[in-house]
């Protein structure tokens, strides 16, 4: 997985590509925590992600519960990945 992070005053944009498997998700978690601590909104650009693991879904659920709707979202996932969020019941997190 490749990751680039861009931060503005209000939003941190995580641009990811490749496989977001368990190890990659666990590596990403501290970065997400940093964003939470800074009180910023977080956007995950998923346009180049082609696999996600349940670990990432769990992180999403945790953050969703912690931050509430609208502060943490997935942008432009491929259809296969959008369907994963749909089946997992986390479609509220997907934008686009």
């Amino acid at each position, binding site marked *: 997985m490749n990751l680039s992070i861009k931060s503005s005053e209000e939003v941190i944009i995580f641009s990811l590509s490749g496989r977001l498997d368990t190890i990659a998700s666990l590596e990403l978690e501290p970065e997400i925590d940093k964003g939470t601590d800074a009180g910023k909104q977080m956007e995950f650009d998923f346009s180049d992600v082609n696999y996600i*693991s*349940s670990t990432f879904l769990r992180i999403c659920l945790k953050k969703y519960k912690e931050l509430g709707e609208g502060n943490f979202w997935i942008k432009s996932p491929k259809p*296969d990945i959008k*369907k*994963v*969020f749909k089946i997992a019941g986390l479609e509220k997190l997907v934008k686009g």
Partner: protein
Amino acid sequence: MEEQQKQQIEDILERATFAAAIFNQYDQQQVDRIVKAVYKAGLNNRIKLARMAAEETKMGNWQDKVKKNVVATQYVYENLKNQKTVGIISEDVQTGIIEIAQPIGPILAVIPVTNPTSTIMFKILIALKSRNPIIISPHRRASKCSIEAARICYEAAMSADAPEDCIQWSTHKSREETQHLMQHPKLALILATGGTGLVHEAYSSGTPALGVGAGNVPVYIEKSADIPFAVGQLIHSKTFDNGTICASEQALVVEKEIASKVKEEMKRQGAYFLNPEETKAVEKVAWFAGSKSMSPEVVGQSVEKIASMAGISVPENTRILVAPLEKIGDDEPLSSEILAPILAFYEADDFDDAIRKCIDLNYHGGIGHTASIFSYDEEKIRKFAIMMNAGRVVVNMPSSQGAVGFMYNTLEPSLTLGCGTYGKNITTDNVSARHLLNIQRITRRRMNERMVNMGFDLYFDESVDADTLETEFNKNY
């Protein structure tokens, strides 16, 4: 039910839902690799799990449970390995239909005490093959061996990169908790193998369910049969795991003309015919008059144990106890299903009388399950089969092993045998991976030629009746 238990169930279902979502990304190759790893782990642990199951449940014997574990792993795998269960599974240019297999979602597997480890491995394999997460709900008297079987499978699945939580198991749940689990909106299907009450609860939960029914298998040795062979097969089947398989023969029907020959052969092969007093004594230990059901105390017990419980003495090397009976029904307890090496025996006047008796037996608690015949008369075999209400009619083979499939015929190997609507089930099939898929059909434009040729004008003319419309519709076709 307390909040904590409710939360536990929520957590189980949430994990299963995530596993279902992740599984959706897997292709056929990945799925097949997981199924292969799990079957191998199950097969490698066949003896350990069989011993654990026999020891914990005190039913059957470990040697036959090894064989059941082999059926549930190796034979099931051989049946599944080349099946397409992911994405496009068939394409027919002629009809313009393309079939797509989609997973159904989280499955709850209810496990019986009689075949715990084998049923678990079987259900796990068919669930994984169809990309569905599975939650194992063990029987309280078989929880240790059940959890170990599930754990072994999960470890193997994870080693082949299966989705996390694709296999979960619950510790013993109260009836209320099980009902809550069954009714959970995130649950897709219940695979219910067990007693009638439990299967009924599954069907009543509002969640789709594939259940089984009780058996009361009649076996008819018709006069054209090879008697020594038929008797050998019957005893082989009835004694298997001390009679715990619900497809095992419960009552033998023979015509009077060959009755003495059959009896002699049965005695020669280890059957002990009970006298009326002994029959009553066995009935007392094998039957609960109050609930009108077999006593769990005799289920899967050996002949020696049952004889000792009943206080009767039987010759050494006796393999089954045979109760010669006349009536069928509630007044005659041993005409019902008893999952132990106890067999009812009926003499019939002729072919028609034999069929009448088999109908009565079949409808007395075993409707939709299995019926068995030994015969070389094709016409009689077919007549018998049509008269039975049974998902499986096995011919010239041991019923226990025959109904389960693969070994003696080409039925799909399964430890969940559908009993049709009369058995309160939705299918008569041997349940397998194909039942755990939603099949989507892409349909391409193929205009119906007759409809096009006829047009719709005639339908608007009230004087044109159905006969004319049928003729016109099929004109020149």
